[in-house]
């Protein structure tokens, strides 16, 4: 694990010149990831903001090998990369110690790429899959995904006169990955540097499939000022909306338990995508969101307790 000061001195692997918005979450995440291993890293990315903003030909922001194939297949493509490496290594034609990372947005992971991800995890490829979860299809103009939380306004779940944003809760993808019984599954977010880097470090130290779900704020998609990225990310944790936890070989560990969880309204207030929920007539939706967050948190506590029983 590298402290921010230390990692500032390391050679930059994701360089300036990319076109991600000021205040975007994923460049922070990439820095955290790169500072968590000394081994060479090969990246395979899905289509989405991360890829389109960083590889506009002939420019590339990547100082490590980077491959993009399509939207729904970063895990499958990475399976092939890792498969080739494994084959060549066995034949004595390859002697480097490479870490393989597949990346996708929430759309490329929760939705269209779920099958490809599930297959790669089941086959036990030695790769770390990271989803930078900004809770919508940002690259195509902020459409809802199954990671979008209830009530959020997106361009395909607009805050209308009758329907007030997304009507479903988010899918619990982290738990779906836990059900794959892989060695390591974790949730983190950009505001918690220590948490993120220690999770990346741990993931890199484990052989086999690993999955990290990282909440990654999006300035235009969420509707907050670009200076507030860290704050929004932090509030998602303080409200228990996005618990920091990890599951190592089936054993749950909640890495941070807020002394007193903040009410979700505080979080909603920060972001334009929830503005309509603050109207008195939408009070019930906010209550439902709160209930759901508390229910999920309770479930998580129980899982932690159950899996830590001696």
């Amino acid at each position: 694990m590298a402290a921010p000061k230390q990692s500032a001195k390391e050679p930059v692997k994701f360089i300036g010149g990319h076109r991600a918005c000021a205040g975007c979450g994923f460049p922070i995440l990439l820095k955290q990831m790169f500072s968590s291993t000394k081994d060479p890293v090969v990246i395979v990315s899905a289509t989405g903001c991360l890829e389109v903003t960083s590889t506009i030909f002939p420019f590339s922001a990547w100082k490590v090998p980077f491959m993009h194939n399509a939207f729904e297949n970063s895990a499958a493509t990475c399976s092939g990369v890792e498969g080739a490496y494994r084959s060549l290594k066995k034949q004595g034609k390859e002697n480097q110690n490479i870490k393989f990372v597949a990346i996708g947005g929430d759309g490329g992971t929760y939705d269209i790429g779920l099958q490809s991800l599930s297959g790669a995890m089941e086959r036990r490829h030695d790769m770390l899959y990271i989803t930078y979860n900004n809770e919508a299809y940002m690259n195509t103009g902020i459409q809802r995904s199954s990671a979008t939380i209830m009530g959020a306004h997106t361009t395909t779940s607009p805050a209308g006169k009758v329907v007030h944003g997304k009507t479903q809760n988010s899918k619990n993808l982290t738990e779906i990955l836990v059900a794959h019984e892989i060695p390591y599954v974790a949730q983190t977010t950009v505001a918690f540097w220590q948490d993120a880097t220690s999770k990346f470090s741990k993931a890199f130290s484990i052989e086999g499939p690993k999955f990290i779900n990282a909440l990654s704020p999006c300035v235009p998609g969420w509707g907050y000022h670009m200076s507030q990225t860290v704050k929004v990310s932090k509030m998602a944790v303080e409200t228990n909306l996005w618990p920091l936890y990890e599951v190592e070989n089936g054993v749950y560990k909640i890495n941070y338990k807020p002394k007193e969880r903040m009410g979700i309204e505080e979080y909603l207030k920060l972001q334009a995508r929830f503005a309509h929920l603050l109207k008195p007539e939408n009070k019930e939706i906010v209550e439902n969101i709160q209930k759901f967050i508390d229910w999920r948190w309770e479930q998580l506590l129980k899982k932690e307790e159950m899996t830590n029983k001696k």
Partner: protein
Amino acid sequence: MEKTIVARTGNEAMAEAMRQINPDVCAAYPITPATEIMQIFSSFVNDGLVKTNLITVESEHSAISACMGSAASGARTMTATSSQGLALMHEILYIASALRLPIVLAEVNRALSGPINIHCDHSDTMGERDAGWIQIYAENSQEAYDLLINAVRIAEHRDVSLPIMVSTDGFIISHEMERLEMYPDSEIQKFIGEYKPNYNLLNIDNPITVGSLVLTDYYLEHKRVQHEAMKNAMKVIPEIFAEFKKVFGRQYDFVENYKCDDADYILICLGSTAGTSKVAVEELRQEGIKAGLLKIRVFRPFPAEEIVKYISKAKAIAILDRSESLSTQAGPVATEVKAALYDAGKIIPMQSYVYGLGGREIYVDQIKDVYRKLKNTKISEQVKYLGVKE
């Protein structure tokens, strides 16, 4: 060279070729009638006969995606599929060719749904004819075996560097036992040589970005380069075929000219129907009808000049398409042959047929009838259905 004579189905022949090619990686997913190729190959893997890392993916979309990751990482890579499987790969086939990855795909032709059908026609590969892959159609097990071996060399040639599919007719060839002459493993290895990738993602010291976003300023140039690579394939394919002949003694070409030189009436088709048509040609010639057959073996790149060379003196031509483009005009083979003749300034009466869809049988008598109609009846500009119940 010592040749072993064995009895093999088309699928077995392709699996044997794969064993002898011994790729670094193979990622595939089962589908009738290609399934067997991977089943046999899986045994080769688990019996330690090949060094291949077999990735048993969860779909054909992932199969071709994994193949791309593998080929981009410096590994010789193969896969096999049919029909819906190839269609599911559609999106990625274009990316594989654009990234110039010499993946070799063993294809077994099967009708596309719907209605769902597992039998032979060419709608699957014809649906991918513009995907930037080299396409070769085999007539029998021997061709399937030989051409799959040639395919490795063609795809990996530096001036080509394109993915390639070699196909056989589902069930008709894939499941039919035939005489096969096999060559020694060592000779195959010598012929194909080491895979030397054009670029390698695993080169850590010289990191590259593969699969960039290319906007209006460079996209056209990227496609232009692919166009040139296909043109290079036109040059390289005969060179590799010639080398193959030198080593293994069998001659291949873009097309097979079967008695076209003095023919008044020429039939053009792909795949196993050529075998049936040869019998028809022989029988008609006994009757004094000068029949000829031109089998198109390489469909991509399209050997327009080669085709025109053999058919330009015919009085009339019949083209058999084993797929429908539903344009209400002719099928894809007829359309492209017509264009080739136009470019050569030739107007020859041509009857186009759609036949054999969904595995409908085609018999010698039907083909003889096609020739006779060329001779005796007025040619229609409308496409005709052969063997349909009306």
